[in-house]
């Protein structure tokens, strides 16, 4: 998922960097910590955990591809959106500057896709879902799992969007890449969702105090939260619907026209579904929607099972814990 230098145009990178820098600065302000607070080591440790987890690639359903944990939702659920965003940003900074994973110039884009949208957006989805589903273990775990899955799709969609905006991609129709990316990440996202859910379920069973419940918000902020959640979901849905774009209004084209990239349009070949030469066994839109439906189903079932398993394991112990105190 890390975008390498050279893939996005420098203009897009710089724009993303500015946005990300502002987001990180805002996170820092909202967190309002000083060095003596435990938020400092905990954020550092969360970053280290995500960093370590990212070095482990998991094979994907036997396919010779592998992806890794983005961790945005995990961090945001455990530390809150602000520290979560910081933790993921730290991981990306350290990977870029000390391990040469990801790029220096595209650092901003990476932070935006995975840190800002992943943690802020993911947390908004999680909080909104939890508000609807309640505070039970099942609700927490499945909200987080769904948020994790959506955040991966959103990151993939954002990448496509950024790539489409880069000047050097003007010769190509990005929707083909779009399809590939979305199918691939719909599957990757399942891994992300299951890992996020499993870790949270475990932590909830042992140290529930480490996972703060989303606090009740004043009406205005609650609306903002639902709005952000909606945006992320919309982004993910847009990604899933992208292959149908010849029939639906083309969001990407509309945006590029408004932004003054209309000239690109003339160089585009005619868009027809049959023209896609995608190295997939089934037709593109089928594969995408299948992946989408399958992914959603697996994530939901997995999350519920996980939460169940945890409850089975711990019910007697939690009772004992309470009497002990």
């Amino acid at each position, binding site marked *: 998922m890390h975008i390498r230098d050279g893939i996005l145009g420098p203009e897009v990178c710089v724009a993303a960097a500015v946005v990300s820098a502002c987001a990180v600065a805002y996170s820092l302000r909202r967190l309002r910590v000083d060095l*003596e607070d*435990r938020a400092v080591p905990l954020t550092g440790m969360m970053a280290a955990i995500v960093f370590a987890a990212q070095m482990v690639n998991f094979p994907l359903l036997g396919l010779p591809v592998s992806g890794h944990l983005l961790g945005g939702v995990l961090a945001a659920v455990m530390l809150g959106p602000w520290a979560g965003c910081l933790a993921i940003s730290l991981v990306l900074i350290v990977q870029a500057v000390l391990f040469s994973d990801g790029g220096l110039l595209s650092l901003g884009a990476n932070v935006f896709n995975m840190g800002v949208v992943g943690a802020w957006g993911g947390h908004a989805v999680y909080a909104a879902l939890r508000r609807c589903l309640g505070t039970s273990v099942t609700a927490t775990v499945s909200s987080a799992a769904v948020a994790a899955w959506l955040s991966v799709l959103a990151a993939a969609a954002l990448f496509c969007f950024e790539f489409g905006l880069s000047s050097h991609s003007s010769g190509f129709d990005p929707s083909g890449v779009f399809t590939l990316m979305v199918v691939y990440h719909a599957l990757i996202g399942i891994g992300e969702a299951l890992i996020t859910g499993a870790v949270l379920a475990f932590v909830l069973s042992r140290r529930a*105090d480490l996972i703060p419940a989303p606090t009740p918000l004043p009406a205005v902020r609650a609306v903002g939260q639902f709005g952000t959640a909606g945006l992320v979901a919309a982004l993910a849905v847009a990604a899933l619907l992208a292959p149908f774009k010849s029939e639906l209004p083309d969001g990407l084209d509309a945006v590029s026209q408004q932004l003054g990239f209309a000239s690109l349009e003339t160089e585009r070949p005619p868009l027809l579904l049959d023209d896609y030469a995608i190295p997939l066994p089934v037709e593109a839109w089928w594969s995408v929607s299948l992946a989408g439906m399958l992914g959603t189903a697996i994530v939901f079932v997995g999350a519920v099972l996980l939460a169940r398993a945890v409850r089975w394991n711990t019910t007697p112990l939690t009772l004992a814990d309470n009497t002990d*105190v």
Partner: protein
Amino acid sequence: MTEPAILELRCLSFRYPNGRLALRDISCRVASRERVAVVGPSGAGKSTLLMHCNGLLPSPPVQQDGEAQVFVNGIAVTKPHLRETRRQVGFLFQDPDDQLFCPTVRDDVAFGPLNLGLDQHEVLARVERGLASVGMSGFTARNPAELSTGERKRVCLAGVFACEPSVLVLDEPTSNLDPRARRQLLTILRAFAGTLLVATHDLDFVIDLCDRVLVLDDGQVQADGPTERILSDPLIMDRHGLEVPWRLRGR
């Protein structure tokens, strides 16, 4: 007491996040240059008490009247003053792994002096002296994680001594030390001119070093007095998971 207290606890209570009440209403004063031992069964709250002297636990809810509960040299151990009080108090953790975190022994011992803002020269001299005093001079370049437990404990001690604090708060300094290192430590601590607060299960060590003993059990101070009197009292000792040491028996 007319002498000003260098360390003072006023009705200190503390509850861990899991709900366990580890300290209940502890009050005590330690005068300058006093050597006090804190003894008691495991789980008595010794480590918890000692960590409060350095403000290492989430600050306890202050009392109703908003007053602090721990004072070092008259300064409240609360957030705004922590840096100041920590400069005066040297703290040894019970578990050496908690204390060592630098990549080499030298870096670890130098960590405190560097944070005191000393210059390179002075820092290096203190690292030398600290390590020499615990007999670990040859270990500067080693990785603390690759030392034996006793060696790690000694590096921790060197790190504390290198800061040259005026108050030493030591949690189980002799655990995992071999007899010779224990004797060296005893010699160093006897020569130490400041105030000393030691939590330990090694009662022989207490007899040799301290003039006052605080018996802690169940989070409360159960006895407080001169070493010989407390440690040779079979009633107190028995009730609180201790034993009258061999040397004080049959007197």
